[in-house]
C-alpha cells in the first residue's frame, strides 16, 4: 500500500483528498502546515505528498525547500495543490523540486491524472 501525506490547513480539503486517496487504496497521513509535514516525514516514508502553498507556521514552499535538502527520506513525489494558479508560482514550485502541480479547484479525475503522471496511481 502506498503512503500519501496530505498537507493543508483546510480540514475540508484534507477530508476530500483523504476520501479520494483512500478509495485509491492509499494509506493517508495528514498535516496542517509545513512544520507538521516535516515532522511526519521524519517518522514515516511517504510515496507522495499533496502540498498546499499558503499555510500558517510554515508554507508549502518553505516545507518543500527544507524537505528536498533533508539528508534522508527526501524523495517522495511532491504535488503542489493550491489556489496559486499563476505561471510564476508554477515555475517557482518546479524549480524548488515539485513533481506536479494541481490548480484548485480540483476533482477526482484531476488528482488521479496527476498521481498517474508521477507514477503513484
Amino acid at each position: 500500500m502506498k503512503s500519501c501525506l496530505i498537507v493543508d490547513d483546510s480540514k475540508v480539503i484534507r477530508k476530500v483528498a483523504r476520501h479520494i486517496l483512500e478509495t485509491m487504496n492509499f494509506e493517508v497521513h495528514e498535516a496542517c502546515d509545513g512544520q507538521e509535514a516535516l515532522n511526519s516525514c521524519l517518522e514515516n516514508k511517504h510515496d507522495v505528498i499533496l502540498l498546499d502553498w499558503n499555510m500558517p507556521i510554515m508554507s508549502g514552499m518553505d516545507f518543500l525547500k527544507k524537505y528536498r535538502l533533508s539528508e534522508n527520506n527526501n524523495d517522495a513525489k511532491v504535488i503542489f495543490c493550491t489556489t496559486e494558479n499563476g505561471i510564476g508560482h508554477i515555475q517557482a514550485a518546479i524549480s524548488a523540486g515539485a513533481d506536479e502541480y494541481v490548480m484548485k479547484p480540483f476533482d477526482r479525475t484531476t488528482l488521479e491524472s496527476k498521481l498517474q503522471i508521477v507514477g503513484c496511481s
Partner: protein
Amino acid sequence: MNIHSSAKSFEILSNLLEERTGQTLSPERHWRIQTSLQPIMREHSIPDIDTLVSVILSNANRGLETDCLEAILNNESCFFRDQASFALLTGPVLDAIRQNKEKEKRLRIWCSACSFGQEAVSMAIALSENFQKWNGWNIEILGSDVSNQAINRAKKGLYSQFEVQRGLPIGLLVKYFNQVDQDWQVDQKIMNMIQYRNYNLVSDNKFVGKFDLILCRNMLMYLSEDNRLKAFQNIEKALNPNAYLMMGSAETVASYSSKLEPCQDYRGFYKRNLT
C-alpha cells in the same frame, strides 16, 4: 412526461444522430440525450424532449437540430490519453515509422476523431520533445472530427484549467502553453504543426491523403456494424503500406479489415500490410 411518446422522441433523435454523423446511441444510453440536451432546452425555454423534437421536426429552427446533435456527440478527451499506450506510440511505434521513412523524411499523422484537439496537440508536443530525432523532417498532423463545433474549438487551441490538468504533465504545460486569464493557450509553434478540418469518417469520400499513422480511439465503438465497416474502409485507404493504426485499448479491428494486422507487442496498434 408521457413515457411512451418520450421513448419515440429519443428514437427520432437517435436516428437523426446516425443519419448525420454515423454514430448510434443504444436505448440503454438514451439518458445521455436527456442530460446533454438540458442546457439547450433551458436556453430555448423548451419544457421537455417531446416538445424539442416537435420543434426540430417542424423545421422551425434548423440551427436547433445541429446544436442538439452536436451536444449529444461525446467529446470526452484529454491530453496524452491512456499514458501506457501513448508511451508505446511515442516510443517504439514512432521509432519504427522513422526507420521506414528515413529516406523520405516525411511524417504524416491523422488524429481522426480529435474532438477539441487534445490528442493532436499531445502528438505535436511529443514530437517536439524529441526534436533531435525528427530534425530535418517534414511533419504534418491532421486533426479531424465529425463535430464542427469541436473543430472550431480545437482551432483556437485554448483550454480551460480543468482540461490542461487532465493528462498533461506540468512541465509540458509551462513549456508549450501560455496563460490567458484562467485559460491556457497552446504555443503557436505547436499549433503550426496541426491542420484541423471537419470530417465524417463514415460518409466523407474526400481523400485526405496517405498517412504513416492514424489514431482512431474510442470512436468506432459508437458506430453501427455497417458504418464501422465504412470507417475502416476509409482508414485503410488513407494508410501507407507499413503504416500504423492506433485504436482505443478496448477496441479491435476484428473482422472489419483484412489489411490491418494486430501488432503482437503493442496492444491497440495495427499495421497496414503490403497487400
